[in-house]
């Protein structure tokens, strides 16, 4: 370098850059309001007494010293550990059959296993009551033990968590390199040895990730423990009792913070695992192609058939029971359980509420999520803003619905908060739902955007085309399948979610999934089953519509064919 250096240059932002930065700013604000600030108010509430005076760890001490409360902590750990121990092996074998065998009808088996996702977690719990409850058909199978309690919770959780575990494991097992198996064969390794030295290590991170996801799902789920928990208290029901039952907001906040811990841990583990997973499969790997082996394929088919039929059966019990006159004494079919007005003052309008909430969450959520992901991925400069928005977008994954809902109570009821007018409105339910399911949607959109050529924006700039035109003419059309995924994901989750909205609905805005909780509470189990059935079929219809629509996209858009 010669004597004096040239003067430094500051890049001048173009009009496009300025627009994108302004939008990023708005996004940071939206995520602050919808995620960060509510969580902050929850956290600070847990350190305050009833009058809002800072009391340090006093609330936490009281929590640990109250045996009735602290017991739930252990109860939660127990059911979560038990469910994980049962679900992970079952889902592993199921996923193995789907990815590594020549079993027939794989799409059918995959579809069967995904059924529970379409339903609120309450549904398997309701089915269990019909089967093993006080009036259960198969009550005798439990040798006089009540289904209410740990047994019921774990059983229902297994059903509810199965598809989540299966999906992660299918992804993990799909990433296999044929060449590793060929080398193992060439070296004369036995099947067991190949399984232990190639298959299992390859799926290791998937298994770890699954275990943590399932553990978190169980700990944070509210519906199942509410319906079949009986007197077996867990954290999720405690938080509800503290807040709704006893109006003890401080203790609710403490339980909320405790509930946040396993979720945060699992989130951290998942991040680490995801980073390691990247190096697993190089670009040159040869995708694994299973070869037929009669004995194995048959055994796996029998296994999957068993699991698939059980899932279908559990699902069918609720559907069937919802058409029964008086379980189990009068099994004639009837539609009177669908006259929801008899069980809930709002009647069918809870379903309308749910449709409004799900549609609004899907439409606004998709727009917000996609635009946000676009700004994070494509805006230039302003690294701080981008990093902040991305970080905020990742938080909801680690926040259980109940905790987010409770945070909303604190934040939107805060004295002097102008956003307080939203409290009790449908708008707040929508904001909450979008925030609750933000991360997965954000990541889906981000993945799709990362697959676009990095230079589209550069080309557009060189052609003097404004960035918004390329966004609408190129980016959005290409990402349409991912956008559709996000929309459906938000819709189905908004239809089935119970946990976050339970703290936020008002008598006019109550959604259908919550009507199930209420009906079950008041002893109208048949009505609850009916409503659950309506939700399942709505979700299923939407899923099928998505399938049809994406087929249509690939058929009508010539450029998608290669």
């Amino acid at each position: 370098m010669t004597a004096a250096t040239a003067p430094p240059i500051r890049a001048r932002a173009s009009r496009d850059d300025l627009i994108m930065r302004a939008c990023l700013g708005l996004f940071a604000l939206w995520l602050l309001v919808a995620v960060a600030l509510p969580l902050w108010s929850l956290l600070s509430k847990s350190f305050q007494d009833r009058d809002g005076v800072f009391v340090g760890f006093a609330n936490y001490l009281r929590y640990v010293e109250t045996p009735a409360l602290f017991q739930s902590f252990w109860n939660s750990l127990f059911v979560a550990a038990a469910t994980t121990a049962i679900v992970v092996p079952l889902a592993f074998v199921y996923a193995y059959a789907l990815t590594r065998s020549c079993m027939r009808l794989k799409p059918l088996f995959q579809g069967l296993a995904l059924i529970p996702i379409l339903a609120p977690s309450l549904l398997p719990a309701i089915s269990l009551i019909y089967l093993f409850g006080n009036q259960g058909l198969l009550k005798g199978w439990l040798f006089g033990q009540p289904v209410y309690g740990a047994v019921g919770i774990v059983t229902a959780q297994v059903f509810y968590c199965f598809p989540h575990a299966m999906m992660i494991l299918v992804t993990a097992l799909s990433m296999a390199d044929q060449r590793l198996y060929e080398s193992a064969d060439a070296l004369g390794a036995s099947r067991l040895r190949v399984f232990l030295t190639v298959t299992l290590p390859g799926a290791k991170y998937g298994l770890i990730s699954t275990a943590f996801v399932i553990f978190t799902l169980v700990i944070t789920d509210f519906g199942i423990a509410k319906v079949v928990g009986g007197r077996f208290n867990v954290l999720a029901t405690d938080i509800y009792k503290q807040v709704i039952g006893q109006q003890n907001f401080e203790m609710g906040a403490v339980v909320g913070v405790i509930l946040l811990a396993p979720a945060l841990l699992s989130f951290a583990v998942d991040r680490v695992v995801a980073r390691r997973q990247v190096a697993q499969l190089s670009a040159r790997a040869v995708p694994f192609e299973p070869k037929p082996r009669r004995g194995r394929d048959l055994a796996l088919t029998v296994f999957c058939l068993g699991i698939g039929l059980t899932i279908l059966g559990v699902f069918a019990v609720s559907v069937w029971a919802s058409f029964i006159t008086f379980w189990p004494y009068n099994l004639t079919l009837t539609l009177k359980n669908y006259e929801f007005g008899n069980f809930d003052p709002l009647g069918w309008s809870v379903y309308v509420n749910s449709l409004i909430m799900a549609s609004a969450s899907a439409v606004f959520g998709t727009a917000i999520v996609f635009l946000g992901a676009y700004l994070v991925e494509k805006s230039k400069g302003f690294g701080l803003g981008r990093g902040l928005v991305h970080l905020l977008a990742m938080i909801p994954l680690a926040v259980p619905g109940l905790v987010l809902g409770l945070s909303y109570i604190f934040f939107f009821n805060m004295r002097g908060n102008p956003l307080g007018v939203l409290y009790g409105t449908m708008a707040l339910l929508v904001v909450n739902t979008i925030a609750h399911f933000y991360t997965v949607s954000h990541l889906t959109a981000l993945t799709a955007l990362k697959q676009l050529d990095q230079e589209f924006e550069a080309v557009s700039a060189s052609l003097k085309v404004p960035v918004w035109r390329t966004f609408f003419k190129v980016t959005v059309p290409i990402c349409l399948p991912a956008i559709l995924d996000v929309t459906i994901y938000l819709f189905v989750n908004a239809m089935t979610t119970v946990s976050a909205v339970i703290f936020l609905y008002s008598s006019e805005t109550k959604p259908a999934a919550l009507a199930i909780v209420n009906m079950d509470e008041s002893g109208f189990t048949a009505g609850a089953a009916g409503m659950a059935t309506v939700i399942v079929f709505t979700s299923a219809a939407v899923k099928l519509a998505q399938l049809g629509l994406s087929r249509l996209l690939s058929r009508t858009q010539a450029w998608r064919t290669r």
Partner: protein
Amino acid sequence: MGVSGGPPYLSIGRLTKRFGAFTALDDVSLEVFAREFVVFLGPSGCGKTTLLRAIAGLDIQTAGTIHQDGQDVSSLPPAERDFGIVFQSYALFPNLSVRDNVGYGLVSRGKSRAETLSRVTELLALVGMPDAGPKYPSQLSGGQQQRVALARALAISPGLLLLDEPLSALDARVRQHLRHELKDLQRKLGITTIMVTHDQEEALVLADRIVVMNHGVIEQVGTPTEIYRKPASPFVADFVGTMNFLEAMVAAPGTVSIAGRSFRVDSLNGMKPGTAALICIRPEDVKTRNVEPGSENALEVEVRSLEFLGAFARARLAAADGAGPDLVADFSINLLRDLGVEPGLRLPVALPADRLRAFPKAG
């Protein structure tokens, strides 16, 4: 060589680009004249793409200035500069037809449909794809996609055409073919063009001037002949073409000693006797025909091995008496036959004094 008189069209002044602690461009200055075809050549990581992106405004430099057509564009965003660009990936919009891709920049300039359409037709004819309009990029071969990308970049009649490794994603045959088309097109349109490549052959064929870069600095700027014949540094000598590197000591003015033998060298680059030097000679410059033993710079060698390369063969030679440099030399197939060259043969060769280039030995 395409260099017109008058002020430069593009003038780069002391450009530096840092990514954190890494300096990608270190105080680079360069002038490009109107209608010139300039190629940035260098290994990956040498800063050539960084320089191109700085010229486009895509990654603005840390320090230094860029003037284009008399205007200071140093800090302008890409949208406010005047250039067309073709990327290695082509970055064609997959959901738009070829016609819409090429017309993409025209529509937002308020051109009428008819005007746009006729311009698109003209451009597609120009790149030799008059019938591709209704097709989608995925239906085209790599070479065809490259032409569409070129047509799109040319559509808005930019003052400067930037090409970022446009041919490197293609297979060898298509690449050679397109190379010539690109050169013809550039001549015909007379558009100032800068291309980035790591392929020295491409650079030699296409460029009016080559800018050889390494480690963020310009090693040499010159015509292809200058670069090949008179490399300014051992790096350039090594990177472009094949080169014998012989360790030597300057013995006297105009004389070096290599492995104990004396050789005469026309130019010693100002090196004083006693300095360690690197003497370079291209394999094809080693004189193998009609060498009289005892003539200037001659030595007796033995053929160690032969590598058949089609039109010629490359031989590894070692001094027959063991004292002297190992050499690589090219034999035409004719000569190979005439002399009966095969491993083990001894023959005299000479290193012509005017073909020897001397550099100070680094370190």
